[in-house]
């Protein structure tokens, strides 16, 4: 853990969406404004060359956070600050950020040849002098991700899901990216293909010193990939810290329940008590701790007072009782 190597510093970032009805109909029906708090007051920092994962169920705001990091969504409050980094070639500057999306069927243009898909960022950013150098670079990239040079002539539909995800990775690397935001990169893939892609991502991280912001709902995948992780619930971090620490000794009741409910191939047919209830709406979050309606340990204080995120060693945790 090199503290001085911070690549991204996020300071109390929030993202709220106004989902009110149009002003006039609100006036007639005496409805107040409705604000959806997708991300509330989130702070974290990512170290260069490591993987920071964000875990949570649907609607917890993890994808909104990812979109804020790549700049597809402006934070309504707070700061996202990319630090200048020194690259192997001597250049200094802010990191180049790229994104890998969940669905490899929707994120590649079906009417473009794979070679053009990967060459587009190179042409757009003028990273190579001419077409022949671009073509060489495209061929190199295809080999890096485990495809063959000849695949540049083919169309996306000729590839399987896993191969398409390799193409997405090659396209992200084409910009000589330093920081990849991966939003559920393997959840559309079969397990054996998922293993291939995860291994490839780990290999590329070592080879090129990449930094990953890894978004997933799959705790086993996150355990495999992460150095640091944060568990999100209803727009807030409830627990964050080094992955080994969080998995080894989960403190927050939500983390514990998540770990308890995931299906486990190593313990077939165990008896378990599933978590009751569902994630509440981020438009009208419950008062106090957002998790209290589902929490088995909740006491009176949890219902009235929202717990602040407090530091405990390397961990940060938001719970009155843990």
């Amino acid at each position, binding site marked *: 853990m090199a503290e001085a190597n911070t690549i991204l510093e996020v300071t109390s970032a929030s993202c709220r969406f106004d989902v009110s009805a149009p002003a006039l109909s609100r006036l007639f029906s005496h409805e107040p404004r409705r604000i959806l708090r997708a991300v509330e007051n989130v702070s974290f920092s990512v170290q260069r060359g490591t993987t920071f994962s964000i875990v949570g169920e649907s609607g917890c705001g993890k994808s909104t956070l990812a979109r804020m990091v790549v700049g597809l969504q402006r934070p309504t409050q707070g700061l996202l600050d990319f630090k200048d980094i020194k690259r192997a070639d001597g250049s200094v500057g802010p990191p180049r950020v790229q994104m890998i999306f969940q669905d490899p069927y929707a994120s590649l243009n079906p009417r473009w040849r794979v070679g053009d898909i990967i060459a587009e960022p190179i042409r757009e950013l003028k990273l190579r002098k001419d077409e022949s150098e671009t073509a060489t670079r495209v061929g190199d990239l295809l080999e890096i991700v485990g495809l063959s040079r000849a695949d540049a002539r083919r169309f996306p539909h000729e590839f399987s899901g896993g191969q398409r995800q390799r193409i997405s990775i090659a396209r992200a690397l084409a910009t000589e990216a330093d920081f990849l935001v991966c939003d559920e990169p393997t959840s559309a893939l*079969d*397990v054996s293909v998922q*293993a291939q892609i995860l291994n490839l991502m780990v290999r590329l991280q070592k080879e090129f010193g990449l930094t990953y912001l890894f978004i997933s709902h799959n705790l086993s995948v996150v*355990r495999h990939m992460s150095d640091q992780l944060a568990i999100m619930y209803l727009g807030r971090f409830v627990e964050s810290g080094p992955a080994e620490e969080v998995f080894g000794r989960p403190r927050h009741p939500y983390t514990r329940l998540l770990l308890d409910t995931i299906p486990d191939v190593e313990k077939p047919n165990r008896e378990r008590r599933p*978590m009751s209830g*569902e994630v509440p709406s981020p438009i009208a979050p419950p008062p106090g701790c957002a998790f209290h309606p589902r929490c088995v340990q909740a006491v009176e204080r949890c219902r009235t007072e929202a717990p602040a995120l407090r530091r405990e060693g390397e961990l940060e945790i938001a719970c009155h009782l843990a």
Partner: protein
Amino acid sequence: MNAQPALLSVRDLRIVFDGRRGPLTALDGVSFEIAPGEILGVVGESGAGKSLTGTAVIGLLDPPGRLAGGEIKLSGQRIDNLPAEAMRKLRGRRIGAIFQDPLTSLHPLLTVGEQLIETITTHLPVGKAEARKRALDLLKEVGIPAAETRIDHYPHQFSGGMRQRVVIALALCAEPILIIADEPTTALDVSIQAQITTLLKRLCREHGTAIMLVTHDMGVIAETADRVAVMYAGRVVEIGPVEEVTRRPHHPYTAGLMASIPSVHRRNAELNQIDGSMPRLTAVPAGCAFNPRCGFATDLCRETKPGLPVSGHAAACHFPLREMAHG
């Protein structure tokens, strides 16, 4: 192994799709049995033929797909050659179905109660009032809170997990003896997924309903099923009790599949990966379909198709891995 007579027995099922470039064999000699009250998990990667097997059992196979051989028996009676009308009566009455996406399996313009009542009155000789009472009981049974008011709500007013509960209630309407559940938890979050699998297990125990659980998620199978059938390229490659198959797989494909699943208990440096991908139906290799990706393949594997397992714990492999190899 099983003293009980099979509730569902599938023998040497072959499904062929007639295409422009000749027939494609999508299922090639699939055989398995499900005992009353048993949950059989059918697991495999995309295109392995697991959903197609389920579709064939409920008789919803669409042209150009056709049954080219084998037989399907429900409680000893052949159902694969029934006329469409007889099959339609059987479906819903004796075989229920649960599909992946609860939003598309429900009619958006009818209340949940109307859909349940319609299904109940279609299959059972009861009146409207009686059917409504039954519908209410079913909703309570699948764990929908405030069922008395929820019965008059439309599907869009329910959350994903609650909708899937409604779909399960619909499948249970006529007290079927077999439920085909095709990826019932895939569209749901993990915590909701656990609620649904627990519910399925409870129903299975209390009603003695057998379930054929089709999914790509080995974790769900391990948590829910009694026995598991692993499919690869249109064939069953291994079948057996869940604990044995997950702990001591005999087929190299199952072993590779198990090892490629990341663990929540520890962090591995590298995941085991099976190189390559499942063959397309147009190019299934001769002999054992898995031979190009198998580390143990010999000439025998490249030439002769290994026999398919039926019961107990067995693998369709010339050289099944012995327990020694796994420690």
